[in-house]
Structure formats: structure tokens, C-alpha cells
């Protein structure tokens, strides 16, 4: 198996990438290649021009500001997973990445590639919605920044235009201490999840919920937050009644159905995994408080 013919470009600077994107209509950006290469090997995708980003060094970085974690689109999943400061400041990211493919695919796979591909059950898309991500898109001569709701268009579909590139991903940073949990179910370790649920929580001195975020992926065409529930939960005690309510809200998401997995089963997983994620995140916050 091999890809169909294409003309290969390997620019070394962002400006050159954007010039090529503006010039060639039928082009694809090659990031880590862990999704695009299989699609080209199978000839599901046959671009006339392949623009390889692997020489663009300025697209690979992790930068921590006061309230933002910024990632260059070509930052490898392996690099993020092994970053000591991310492990410290955003431990849920490490937990989520442990479910992304395998060590050999994380060695090449990038955060920008995964998010541009926008598989509904991709762990990094879940992390993006959980952290109220901002996406910096660039085209020749201009840049724009979109929030998650503007960026996400539908099943494997984003607002990135054919002449645009996802350049940076900014995640909103949560203060420490934070409770966190990432729960997923996949048929085999490293497969795309059928359903994944992530949760971040902080509790006030009285033990009541101060801030809560719950993201559910793999159920609907776009990863979902339980925003109404998150707001309503503020000031409530984290107990089984609350976990059950979160689980019921998750199970109410309109679920996809396909040849392998029914909508009912996806809702079942959303319910079970949400209960576990919120319970675990709250327990972790409490155990941090003790130490």
C-alpha cells in the first residue's frame, strides 16, 4: 500500500507554510501523520500537494503563562506527556495522554494534528473543551482566534479553512489545588474511546463545590461540556446525590449510533463514566487538601 501521487513540500518556517497553503488549492498539512498517513495509505485522502510541517521548529513549544497553557500545533504528544511542568500544573493532561494511541504513535503524533483531525472521541479534543481552549488559526497575512464553540463545526469538522493552519492551542489553566479525573472505555487499550469523561473540580473551605468542569467525548459528534450542571452545582456538597445528577445529565446527551455501538450503549457509558470521574476528582481534591 502506498499513497497516491502528490507533490511534496517541506517548508521550515510558518510564513512559507502559509504561502504554500494560499498557493495550492488541493493541499493537506502533514503533522505527525498518525491519522493522515493511514488515510493516504488507504487512499481515502489523495491531496495533490502535501505540506509537511515536521521541519517547522517554531510550531513545537509548550509555554505556561499565568492563566494559560499554550502549545504549538506540532508539539508531540510524547513531549507533553513527559513535560515536568505539565505534570505539575495540568496532571489531567498526562492521564488523558496515557490513553492516546501507543508509545510509538505518541512519539510522532502532535496536539495540533489530533485537534485538527477532530475525531469525536479523541482525548485531546476532550482536553480542549474541558479547558475552554482558544485556537489560533493563521492564513497568509492574518490570524484569528476562536473559542471551542466557534472552532467545532461537527463530526470531524472544524472551522479551519482550506488556506488556514491551526498554529497554537491555548488551554485555560486551573489553579492548584485541583481535583481531576479522566475515565474512558475503549475496546482495546490505545484504541479510540467509545466514550471518555474528564472532570476538574475545586472545593471551598467548607467542602462545597467552588468550580466544576465536566467534558464528555465520543457520545455526540462534538465533545460536550455539562455547562448548566456545572453552574448549578456551585455551592453544593460533592456527594452521591450530586454524582448521580451529573451522571443523569451526561446520559441525556443526544448520542450517536454506528455499526459497532448503539446510542443507548454510548449513553450508558456516559452515565457510568461521569459518575466515576466526578467522584474520583472530588476525592482527589480532598486527599490533596489533607497532605
Amino acid at each position: 500500500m502506498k499513497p497516491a501521487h502528490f507533490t511534496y513540500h517541506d517548508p521550515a518556517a510558518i510564513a512559507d507554510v502559509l504561502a504554500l497553503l494560499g498557493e495550492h488549492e488541493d493541499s493537506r498539512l502533514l503533522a505527525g501523520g498518525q491519522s493522515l498517513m493511514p488515510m493516504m495509505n488507504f487512499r481515502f485522502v489523495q491531496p495533490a500537494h502535501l505540506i509537511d510541517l515536521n521541519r517547522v521548529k517554531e510550531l513545537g513549544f509548550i509555554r505556561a503563562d499565568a492563566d494559560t497553557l499554550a502549545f504549538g500545533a506540532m508539539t508531540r504528544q510524547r513531549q507533553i506527556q513527559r513535560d515536568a511542568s505539565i505534570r505539575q500544573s495540568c496532571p489531567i493532561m498526562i492521564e488523558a495522554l496515557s490513553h492516546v494511541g501507543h508509545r510509538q504513535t505518541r512519539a510522532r503524533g502532535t496536539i495540533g494534528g489530533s485537534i485538527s483531525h477532530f475525531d469525536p472521541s479523541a482525548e485531546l479534543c476532550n482536553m480542549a473543551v474541558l479547558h475552554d481552549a482558544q485556537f489560533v488559526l493563521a492564513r497568509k497575512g492574518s490570524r484569528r482566534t476562536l473559542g471551542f464553540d466557534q472552532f467545532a463545526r461537527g463530526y470531524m469538522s472544524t472551522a479551519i479553512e482550506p488556506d488556514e493552519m491551526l498554529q497554537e492551542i491555548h488551554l485555560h489553566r486551573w489553579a492548584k489545588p485541583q481535583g481531576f479525573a479522566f475515565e474512558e472505555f475503549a475496546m482495546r487499550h490505545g484504541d479510540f474511546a467509545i466514550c471518555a469523561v474528564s472532570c476538574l473540580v475545586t472545593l471551598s473551605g467548607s467542602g462545597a463545590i467552588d468550580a466544576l468542569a465536566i467534558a464528555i467525548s465520543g457520545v455526540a459528534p462534538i465533545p460536550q461540556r455539562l455547562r448548566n450542571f456545572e453552574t448549578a452545582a456551585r455551592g453544593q456538597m460533592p456527594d452521591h446525590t450530586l454524582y448521580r445528577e451529573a451522571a443523569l445529565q451526561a446520559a441525556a446527551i443526544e448520542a450517536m449510533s454506528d455499526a459497532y455501538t448503539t446510542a443507548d450503549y454510548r449513553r450508558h457509558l456516559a452515565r457510568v463514566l461521569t459518575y466515576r470521574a466526578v467522584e474520583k476528582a472530588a476525592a482527589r481534591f480532598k486527599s490533596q487538601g489533607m497532605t
Partner: protein
Amino acid sequence: MSDTRNIAVVVNGKSYERTVDTRRTLGDFLRLDLGLTGTHFGCEHGACGACTVRVDGIAVRSCLMLAVQANEKSVQTVEDLAKGDSLSPLQQSFHDRHALQCGFCTPGILMTMTEFLEENPAPSEAEVRDALSGNICRCTGYQNIVDAVLLAADTMRKTQDAV
């Protein structure tokens, strides 16, 4: 029609300069252009791990990389593990623990676990299983592979201590 590039690659310590189709995968380049058929192609879409090689030391799928992307890089394949007739500690452990049957997946597993053991010389069984998760074996049921990797780790630590 065909788009080609000249590349310079070091494979198993030997320098090669070749003209390749830009659509040539690294795995096909190794097998068809260099005749290094130890690297096996199973699924050719990144699921089975049989084609794993090391590029600048990092274990990657050679079916998901283009040969042109290995330009000016150093590649190591399974052919480079044994030194003459002397097997690497991991290969010897695979022999001693019967960690292969048909052997098709073995090159990818050896390259993956050689990298893994360099990073983690004293792994737990769970860590070995996690690191193995990207390589599919349809014969062994994995138990003997896990045993062999743990044995190799043990052997390598003892050799290290003796030095």
C-alpha cells in the same frame, strides 16, 4: 508525474544516498530500496506495530513515515540488534523464553522494547504490558513476551552491575 527527492540517511550506522519517490514510506524504503527485510509490514496503517523502527533513537511506525522525512536522520532496524552471531540481551531472552512463534511481529516488538528498556531499566510487569500495547502478536498470547522482556531487564541490570 512522480515527485522525487534525494535523501541522505544513516541506516544501522551505514550512510546511504538515494533518490526516492516522495510518497515512498520509510518501511518500503528500508525493505525495497535497501533490502533490509527484517522490518515487517503488517497492517500498513499504524495499528499492528510490526514495522516499528527507531529514528534518531525514537521508536516509530515506519509505515506512517515517509522516507523523505528520514532525510539527514539516523535509522536503526532489527538487523542492527545482534552483533555478528551474538544476540542482544533482549533477543537472547526472546530465545530463552520462547517469546516468538511465527516471528512476524518480533522485529517491531524488539525495536519497541529495546527503546523502552533503555528508558526504564527496571520495569514492572504492568509497565511492560503498557509499553507492549502498540504491538499486536497473534501467536503467543503475550505472556512469554512479557516474561522475556522482564528477563532481559534483569540480565541487563546484572551486566551493568558487574561492570
